[in-house]
């Protein structure tokens, strides 16, 4: 067999393998029957563990970063809240929008997403933060 014929048979052979190996069109029970010699339950458990570990590792890294950002953001907010009594109305409204714009605030209140709630709820949240700031002030 010359080189061209050799390559042709390799390509054809590969196509055949691809066609016959693809489970497309087979039912679940047909697939299970063909896998009779394999410990599929063990394999599935191993795969699920791999996936969970990878996702958990990613989640922990994200949580750590989120906590650091949250602390920094809250510190800045507390500092501003301590000066609320000195703010003009315009400054108060700007401060409100600044707070509203801070995405990391969603972490301070776990399920709180400022983009998904109405203004009254944001004001409530702001009131909570101001309360925190007042508690901090009273501790001084």
């Amino acid at each position, binding site marked *: *067999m010359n080189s061209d014929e*050799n390559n*042709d*048979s*390799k*390509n*054809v*052979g*590969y*196509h*055949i*393998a*691809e*066609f*016959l*190996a*693809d*489970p*497309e*069109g*087979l039912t*679940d029970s047909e*697939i*299970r029957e*063909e*896998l009779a010699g*394999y410990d*599929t339950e063990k*394999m*599935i458990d*191993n*795969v*699920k563990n*791999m*996936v969970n570990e*990878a*996702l958990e590792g*990613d989640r922990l890294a994200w949580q750590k970063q989120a906590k650091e950002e949250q602390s920094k953001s809250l510190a800045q907010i507390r500092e501003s809240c301590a000066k609320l009594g000195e703010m003009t109305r315009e400054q108060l409204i700007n401060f409100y929008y600044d707070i509203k714009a801070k995405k990391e605030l969603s972490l301070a209140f776990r399920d709180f997403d400022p983009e998904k709630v109405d203004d009254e709820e944001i004001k409530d949240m702001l009131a909570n933060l101001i309360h925190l700031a007042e508690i901090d002030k009273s501790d001084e």
Partner: protein
Amino acid sequence: MEVKKQIEQTDWENLSRRLLFYTSKKVEYIFGRVNGEILLLGGKSPEDIVYEAIARLLDGTRNWNPERVSLWVFLKRTIDSIISHYSELKETQSRAQYTTVIDGDSSEDEEAPQKSVNPVDSSPNPEEIKISNERMELLSLALNRLLDLKQENEQYCYVLMCMQEGIVKASGISDAAGIEVSQVYSLKRRIKRDFDRILLEMCASEIMMEG
């Protein structure tokens, strides 16, 4: 975040079974069986190859773009890459099979560039390459034999000829041969049974001749 969410929401039980089916059959057809057992490529079982493909997704060795290709296709391609390492069928050759497919979704390419996907610590054994080359020839001969045997059955032969040309997806065969997809699936089952029988006969007669 999109990728993570998709990974979280995937039915890994179903996907794992399909991947194992694909891997074990692919290895069996490309390398055959040795003493009745599927060849371990570089010492790896079909399950090991499935784990390796999934690990490459999870550790970022291979990037998946869910907007371009499904997770099933992505992992299948990764498995092809691992298997191709042990034969002379290079990844570029295997990728060419997908670009010739007439398919509803022809955008089955992955993002580039990729990190190296071939393991450094398990080089292909020359014996494995020789086995796969001989096997490819055997598969090609088996196909020709089937075409002879089934020449009266037009639809059956159309499917075989599509396979010869690299059209391997049911939708592509349906378009090319004018056969309903459900009929393609039905023919595929018959073709697989017939192929397996012919391969057994050919291997048995080879052994007898060597004896």
